[in-house]
């Protein structure tokens, strides 16, 4: 029996924004558990709070927001930790990969320099030469061919899928225990998406890195995670092992969401709508509602 503490243990996480109409909870009393080496999927539609959750875990929520609750990484409390200490955790023990690799990479520097910089920020005293070796190894790790040459290339010289590989290489260079990936394949073509998902699986298998995958895509979570949290309006409406959620969803929202997913395997008579009457009710009740009022 292992006595290791949970890799990630989130309790009662709440992120509150002040708005003209009073405080608004973007995330409300959320609990998450991830065992070392496990893979947790957080799924939800736009506005469900899933991305805010990923930011809040790392203390990266917007300044205006207030975060309460507890986030423990291997038993170590991150809420209330000083910014300097947090910075040592971020990018070192916990790494993040976002949806759009082009806006996460600096166009003026070679990818090699950016990986080296990120690495040396967490490993002071490492020489440039040693960091360069790490960068090349990191690119090889994510199957970028001719890594020793590609390390000197700029972000625009890579395709979208290759840029996401670079981001993953950078994230993994410090051998983190936990990788938080927020819609990592949403901007990618389907064949490239399949390659990146394979890569994430392989990394988990070979390095035992824990994974939190945030996505709107139910098929993607069904393929690569083992536990799922379904979010709606900042609240977890259902959680469970992946097979249980997909074979026996209990919450009406989860059931409706699964009914609404178009299947490639066959045509469903009528795709069932999650909010059947949303189209005819007043504006801004669907999940994609914007906050912009506009002139009335």
């Amino acid at each position, binding site marked *: 029996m292992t006595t290791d503490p949970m890799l990630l243990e989130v309790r009662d996480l709440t992120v509150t924004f002040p708005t003209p109409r009073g405080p608004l909870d973007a995330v409300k009393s959320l609990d998450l558990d991830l065992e070392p080496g496990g893979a947790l999927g957080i799924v939800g539609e736009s506005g469900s709070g899933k991305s805010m959750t990923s930011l809040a875990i790392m203390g990266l929520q917007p300044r205006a927001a207030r975060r309460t609750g507890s986030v423990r990484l291997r038993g170590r409390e991150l809420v209330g930790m000083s910014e300097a200490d947090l910075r040592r955790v971020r990018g070192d023990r916990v790494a993040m990969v976002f949806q759009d690799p082009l806006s996460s990479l600096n166009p003026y520097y070679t990818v090699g320099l950016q990986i080296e910089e990120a690495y040396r920020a967490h490993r002071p005293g490492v020489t440039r030469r040693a960091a360069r070796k790490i960068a090349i190894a990191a690119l090889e790790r994510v199957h970028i061919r001719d890594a020793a040459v590609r390390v000197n290339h700029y972000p625009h010289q890579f395709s979208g899928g290759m840029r996401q590989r670079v981001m993953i290489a950078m994230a993994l260079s410090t051998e983190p225990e936990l990788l938080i990936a927020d819609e990592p394949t949403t901007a990618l073509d389907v064949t490239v998406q399949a390659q990146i998902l394979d890569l994430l699986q392989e990394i988990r298998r070979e390095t035992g890195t824990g994974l939190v995958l945030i996505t709107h895509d139910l098929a993607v979570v*069904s393929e690569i995670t083992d536990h799922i949290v379904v979010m709606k309006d900042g609240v977890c409406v259902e959680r469970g092992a992946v097979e249980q959620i997909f074979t026996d969803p209990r919450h009406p929202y989860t059931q*409706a969401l699964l009914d609404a997913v178009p299947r490639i395997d066959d045509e469903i008579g009528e795709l069932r709508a999650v909010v059947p009457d*949303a189209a005819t009710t007043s504006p801004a009740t*669907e999940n*994609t509602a914007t906050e912009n009022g*506009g002139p009335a």
Partner: protein
Amino acid sequence: MSEPLLRATNLVKEFPVMGTGGLLRRPATFRAVDDVSFEIRAGETLALVGESGSGKSTTARLAARLLDVTSGTVELDGEDVTALKRSALNRFRSEVQVVFQDPFSSLNPRHTVERIVTAPLLYQQRPVPGGARAFTRSLMERVGLDPDHSQKYPAQFSGGQAQRIGIARALAVSPRVVVCDEAVSALDVSVQAQVINLLRELQREEGLTYLFIAHDLAVVRQIATRVAVMTQGQVVEEGARDAVFDAPRHEYTRKLLDAVPRIRPEWERQRRANAGRSAGATS
């Protein structure tokens, strides 16, 4: 077999490559669409599928006469429309309309729904049947929007509702063909399901013909009659929907289909069985 309503023959579109031309030198060209032909029969949906850069959107724009062809022809109901100008082109635009991916960037944020959906008729200098107010109300009802919101602005609607406005605008001129360029791609899954249902319903009830551009193959499975698979500017496979999905002939089609993430079919069967059981228990 009836004649096709929309026919594209040997479409080619070349774009000049920036920075390659000179005073006396022609610029190099990039061939985005390379000899593409297709036909759509009335009341059917042809889906053009492919990844980014495959030329599917450019092909759609050529068919809708939003771009001029380098060579090839577009025919509507047997008439060559490739070179139509001014009033003749306006007439063509009454027959073929387009719905775009992002409703918020394709709807003027400073115009009310009424102004947006009546604009196509005004551009074509056609009268608005029954007056703008009544016309807008009936259009909004057709696409499942509350007609009382005809004086609101796009930003006051959710993404799914805004896309319904885009569809209403396309329907305003009573077109026979609607080109949907990634029309449901930006929507959340629940809202996407509603808009797909609306498009299917409109086709069933009004006999619309769709050229449906999409990268999401699962969506295409729900709506297409026929499917054409594009890559690098060319159609590599074209056929009836189920034939393409169930027995793809081209290697690229197989690669594309294999790459689509999917929920395990056995989980899906189990879920439906469980849902049926609990529905039976409560009734």
